[in-house]
């Protein structure tokens, strides 16, 4: 199915919850209301005509100028061979969205990664811990304004340039 038609189905099913469809770009995408993301995902997965049985990717994008963090869902259907990209806009100072763990199991780890690196809170997640970084790490590195802490557990994270080291 064409992405345009998929968006049409969504608009019909969830009036007012989906918006801003971009069809003439590399990856056609649309925006979904943060409150409705789980329903939309479940509908996309279960509808026999759409059958998005796979969540290919779930990641975040930080837009400090627009004061928002986007969570991006890449969906794919093996049966229908079509794809769709969903985006959820969240406020930067308090990014919270419901978990899609109940729709696709793989979302569990993807969401943990987004939580770890972007600081997005996935409400209702069964095991929202940091995944890549240590539990006591400060900050979320993939945010654009992230500043690395100077030391971690007494170990310096800074390093003198190699040339300076050789000259010393």
């Amino acid at each position, binding site marked *: 199915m064409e992405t345009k038609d998929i968006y049409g189905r969504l608009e019909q099913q969830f009036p007012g919850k989906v918006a801003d469809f971009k069809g003439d770009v590399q*990856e056609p995408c649309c925006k979904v209301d943060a409150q409705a993301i789980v329903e939309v995902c479940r509908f996309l997965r279960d509808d026999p005509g759409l059958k998005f049985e796979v969540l290919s990717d779930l990641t975040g994008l930080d837009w400090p100028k627009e004061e928002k963090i986007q969570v991006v869902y890449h969906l794919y259907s093996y049966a229908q061979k079509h794809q769709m990209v969903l985006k959820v806009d969240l406020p930067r100072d308090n990014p919270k969205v419901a978990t899609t763990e109940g729709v696709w199991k*793989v979302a569990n780890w993807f969401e943990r990664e987004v939580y770890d690196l972007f600081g997005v809170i996935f409400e209702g997640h069964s095991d929202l811990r940091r995944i890549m970084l240590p539990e006591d790490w400060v900050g979320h*590195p993939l945010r654009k304004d992230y500043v690395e802490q100077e030391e971690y557990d007494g170990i310096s994270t800074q390093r003198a340039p190699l040339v300076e080291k050789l000259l010393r």
Partner: protein
Amino acid sequence: MNETAPVETGFYTEDMTISVGPQHPSTHGVLRFVVRTDGEVINEAIPDVGYLHRSIEKIGEKVTWHGYVPYTDRADYLAAMFANQGFCMAAEKLGNVEVTRRGEFCRVIACELNRIASHLISVGTFGQDIGAMTPFVHALRERETINNLMEEICGARLTYNYIRIGGVGYDILPETCTRITAFLDHFEPLVDEYNRLLSYNKIFIERLAGVAVVSREEALSYNLVGPNLRGSGIKWDIRRDIPYSVYPELEFEVPIGGAQVGKLGDSYDRYWVRIRELHESCKILRQCLKMLPKGPAIAKVARKFKPPAGECYARVEAPRGDMGFYVVADGSEYPYRVRIRTGSFAAMSIIDKLSKGIMVADLIALIGSLDVDAPEIDR
């Protein structure tokens, strides 16, 4: 075998929590499991990843488009070529660069050689993990030949930095083509030798048949990709279904698991898919060498590569499955965001689920059969 019924002994037994890894020889890189066992039976194995996190995604925001290619090598160092290709495909789509035809063929040749090398490691270490030493040495011997060929093609043996935006770094010479053909002539009969040594080995089969079965639904829900997905009987290969490069012109089959010895989607099925893919890669290589056209190996691309603002998701079929590069450009010299979605990440997340009720020794077989690769999980 997967006999999980608890034995009623009348004795009170206490769960034991042990830590497997991060430096355990069978964990394929640096990863760790916290395993809670009841005697030999695992109640729960919680993966603890992140030991190899090098923030490759963050580095992507700080280097130029051309400069990022060597970093992608490090995402999965057993199959560096595919990460190169994934990123370059994304950049080319964004910047509207047409890859030269010879460049495409050089890419496929290099990638398929890399796939054979990666599968050899996977199959060899898998045997070693569950106690068969010899096949590992045999597999690594052949991989060494591929490393030599790779060195001839691009000057590096592990992290290639061969595929560039617009084509490939160096052309493949006619002498190299001859040597690749010679290698294929030598290698193809050897796969049967591996089969006699390992695949048809009674002990090996008994260890794997019916262990850690992944159903079709689970495979989809956990988004397993590549040989792990095909092992569960789903015929899906990016090369065939979302074709890229020159794969549509080439003939090859997509092997899927067929419950040879146990149940569909068990550890043996996943292993067997990889063995059959070795043959398919050889087939593709022979066709490519025959079809290799003349012409430049790389298109003219601006040194200051500045694709217009936009975003793109490129998929390649790496040895560990669908590798996705989600790249966002904002029109500057640097990518705005590079996201690498790898096969092992999803494969690792299913281990928690599959390990319930299996034996400790089967956990090792499970890790090996899923072919998880620590650098690819952590990036």
